[in-house]
């Protein structure tokens, strides 16, 4: 697993208060991890902070799963 994936999962665990093993790559923040719309906004802010990148609102709307986040960040920072 990539370093980005580890860090993304750690943030998700901390912010959503979920068990680590539930944070699989295909897990949906809202459907599987109990997030609401405000939680997802905050998650995106936490990703921006952690990875020093900017995630525009239209891109943020498409980040629905753990994998979406990892892919976006790897692309942005790649």
């Amino acid at each position, binding site marked *: 697993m990539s370093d980005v994936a580890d860090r993304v999962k750690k943030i998700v665990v901390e912010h959503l208060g979920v068990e680590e093993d539930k944070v699989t790559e295909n897990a949906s923040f809202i459907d599987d991890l109990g997030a609401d719309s*405000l939680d997802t906004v*905050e998650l995106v*802010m936490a990703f921006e902070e952690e990875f020093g990148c900017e995630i525009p609102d239209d891109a943020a709307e498409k980040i629905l799963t753990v994998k979406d986040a990892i892919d976006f960040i790897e692309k942005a920072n790649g």
Partner: protein
Amino acid sequence: MRRVVVTGVGAVTPLASGAQNTWQKLLNSQSGIKSIDTFDVSDIPAKIAGLVPRGVGEGLFNAEDHVSVKDMKKMDDFIVFGVAAADQALADSGWKPETEEDQEATGVLIGSGIGGLPKIAEATELVNGGKTRRVSPFFIPSCLINLVSGQVSIKHGLKGPNHAVVTACSTGAHAVGDASRMIMLGDADVMVAGGAEAAVCRLGMAGFAAARALSTGYNDTPTEASRPWDEGRDGFVMGEGAGCVVLEEYEHAKARGAKIYAEVVGYGMSGDAYHITAPAEDGNGGFRSMRNALRNAGLNPEDVDYVNAHGTSTPLGDEIELGAVKRLFGDHASNMSMSSTKSATGHLLGAAGAIEAVFSILAIHEGVVPPTLNLRNPSEACKGIDLVPLEAKQRKVNVALSNSFGFGGTNASLVFKAI
């Protein structure tokens, strides 16, 4: 009109977490006021406050007992305190509505004087520092005053009236009074009512200090700073916390065999129409508030055994309240007891009226009146009235009246009676 009784109490105060824990410390003449060590006060003249004792153990406040770590960032401290006091009051009452009908018959009315000042200060720094995108999506709901009522309703599934009061330092009393009327009028059978406050932050301290409202002469001896009616008083001491009661329609409470602390028999309100921060000099607002509460209760001044005064320890306010009490109660003033529990807790602003309602209810229920700490040199005006100096006193209390007066000239008085 339907009768309303108190079936549960909860309190998070500078003395302790828990109504009974707080009450025992209050009766033991302990003070919850200490030096502020949680933020910089070097440029603020008032350096002390009544701070909720935090930690794990009996009487200590552990936020995680009431709110998950995940949800903590969605609430400023006043909401966390309010949720905790409501949890305690509901547990004490044994009322746990599970059917749709019971949930719809149970409402929440918890107010705050100021709301999320610490979070407002934090977010303002971000915005002014050009970090607008860092403002949390939870910022607004973490500050809004009615979010105490909102969070309590969500946590416990309470689907009745969901309301909040904002009347500065009268908030807690207005909340209990208004909620009792909602039950009387049939809007709900049970209401969780009270007040919550956590404005002890740099912005809050600076603001009240600028208004010259705070004690500044006892920074080195914090427990002596709040001294209502004492010659040495020099302003109030900020406090934080929350108080809640479970109010219930009498027959509803009886039918489920609930423990009943006291009955809410009177509620009076008035406006000073005088000044934004100072009470009217003749005490007319407080006088009318008490008079209206007794009239509402159908009681005479002679029926009152105990008054929990607003008594904030300000040079002006204490004497004016005392004058109003003497005018209303006349000769009977020498037969009753009156104390200011702010001497031990500090002034919890929007939560004050709620925790003092709890103290008044416990005075009735347990036959003891709490003390006015630090009242060593009463002013001349204190002659002829028992202000319960320094130590609690055993006495039967059939009727208790609790006063709360707020900035803007808003006054509320509650009357409780033994059942």
